[in-house]
């Protein structure tokens, strides 16, 4: 187990280093950040001052070394739009996004898991069809359409909920529901198919034949065996939740990282975008690492090889 974790960890660190280099060169092939930020009609003097201030007048390899050295010191650059350190600008908005993602994840699990289990147990019956139709509608519904419709219903017509911001507890309701909807569909579908796969196995019939109550068989015997694909989806959901958050934060004027990313792209604030992407890559790599470790805890039969059984990505 220790060897497994060490080898996984070293690979994760290597991937992060590659991603850092990739992020740097991707941002630099974009063209001149000075022109992108100041506009094409900027005076040459202004461009020169801007370049000097942000170190853009150095050759590319020198810039890269400075960039890596700065990263090692925890210096991720300065936001072109706000003039403050990127790390400060981004860390101000990260908690709001994490709250939204946590609540959305919780709601998706709270509804998706039981719905999927019910559908599997009552396979082919009315409940099953209801869950399946609901899940297809759930992940076919664009989150921005759902968000706008909720705004119309609950803000304009019923006047119950605020249209945006994150000031009060009720502000969380619409963004959370919007974020969770697609994932309720995904979780219930995966849970259903995974449970169906387990429910047909002989060891469950044997458990029933031994006289164990149906609920014990379901919770103690079936669910743990169906857990692996469900864990895979939840690992993938993390990235999807983050993507969803950038849309939903824009719709509900939520002061989070997703909205910051979108506004930074619209205003060509490359250092902020770069930092968010780096943060994201690191988070995703560690999420995958955690999922890998979790697999081995859940199912000791899983070996080192082929330890990333990802089955299609969740949005």
């Amino acid at each position, binding site marked *: 187990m220790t060897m497994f974790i060490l080898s996984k960890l070293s690979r994760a660190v290597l*991937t992060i280093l590659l991603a850092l280099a990739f992020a740097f060169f*991707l*941002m630099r*092939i*974009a063209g001149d950040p000075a022109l992108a930020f100041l506009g094409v009609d900027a005076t040459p003097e202004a461009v020169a001052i801007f370049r000097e201030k942000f170190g853009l007048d150095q050759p590319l390899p020198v810039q890269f070394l400075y960039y890596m050295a700065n990263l090692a010191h925890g210096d991720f650059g300065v936001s072109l739009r706000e003039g403050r350190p990127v790390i400060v600008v981004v860390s101000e908005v990260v908690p709001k996004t994490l709250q939204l993602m946590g609540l959305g994840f919780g709601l998706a699990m709270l509804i998706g898991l039981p719905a999927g289990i019910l559908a599997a147990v009552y396979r082919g019956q009315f409940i099953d069809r209801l869950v*399946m139709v609901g899940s*297809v*509608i759930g*992940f*076919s*519904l*664009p*989150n*921005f*359409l759902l968000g*706008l*419709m909720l*705004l*119309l219903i609950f*803000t*304009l017509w019923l006047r119950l909920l605020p249209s945006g911001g994150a000031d009060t507890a009720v502000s969380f309701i619409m963004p959370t529901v919007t974020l969770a909807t697609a994932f309720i569909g*995904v979780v219930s*579908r*995966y849970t259903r*198919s995974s449970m169906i796969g387990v429910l047909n196995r002989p060891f469950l019939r044997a458990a029933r034949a031994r006289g164990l109550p149906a609920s014990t068989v379901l919770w103690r015997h079936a669910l743990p065996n169906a857990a692996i694909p469900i864990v895979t989806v939840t690992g*993938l959901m*993390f*990235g*999807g939740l*983050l*993507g*969803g958050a*950038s*849309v939903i934060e*824009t*719709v509900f004027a939520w002061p989070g990282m997703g909205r910051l*990313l*979108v506004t*930074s*792209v*619209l205003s*060509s604030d*490359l250092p902020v*975008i770069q930092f*968010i*992407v780096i943060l*994201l*890559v690191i988070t*995703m*790599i560690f*999420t*995958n690492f955690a999922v890998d470790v979790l697999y081995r805890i859940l199912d000791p039969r899983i070996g080192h090889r082929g330890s*990333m059984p*990802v*089955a*299609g*990505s969740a*949005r």
Partner: protein
Amino acid sequence: MTDLSTKPLAMWLRLPKLSAAGSICGLWLLIIVIAGFAGPAILGIDPNGVDLLARLRPPVGFGGTVDHLLGTDQLGRDILIRICHAVRVSLLLALFGTLIGAAIGISTGFLAAHFGGVVDDVISTLIDFQAAMPFLILAIAAVATLGSNIAVLLVLVSVFGWERYARLSRGLALSYLNNGYVVAAQTYGAGWGTIYSRHILLNILAILIVNITLTFPEILMLETTLSFLGLGVQPPHASLGSMMNYGRDQLFKAWWISILPGLAIFLTTLAVSTIGDILSNRLSIDRR
């Protein structure tokens, strides 16, 4: 030989029975395709025709008149004709994205299966990397560096989802390569190109088509999401997503500008997903 290898495809092509849900979905797709490709010619209205005297007219049934069936936007442009044009942009982007992605994925999957070793390692690592990353965020970052225009968008939707085809075709090719008919084809002198394209590809086509019905709605969603955020299709072109973005600040005054294109996206993704479900049930392919 050919008869045998095309059987999985023929099996579902020859199924004449269509469920009620399947027919409704098929009908909707037919309507949306006709609206997108013949609609502009039939209606004959200029999608960018500004009519400041007819601004923010509601759709028929909500107090609107017949000359603007789905109402008008803040410049008095007809929503119906704009949706028709936007549908064409969105559908074409999603279609090309799906097909190019499938082509990239299938060929890399076959390459990995055929050569193994380092080639397989590199391709498999790329597959795992892309599967792990949230594509929307990477796409947003790519737009930040490359700018937003149709060409960049086409590249992004094409790169989306290739890894699924690659994983599928790699795994399936590996299992089919040991089949008797591949050995037989080799014995009578068929080249690898023929074996992959005529024998293996045709055998796994059904699974790949089901995967297409799964990926197409997501690609449509990716494009409309980027356009909704203002990072996708730019004026004078319009996609369903950019129409929604344009009407967003008028939501409380004129909901139809945003909501109607959104419904068009929703019904299209729903129809394709449902058809995909029906197909995978008939072929008993485990999708999720």
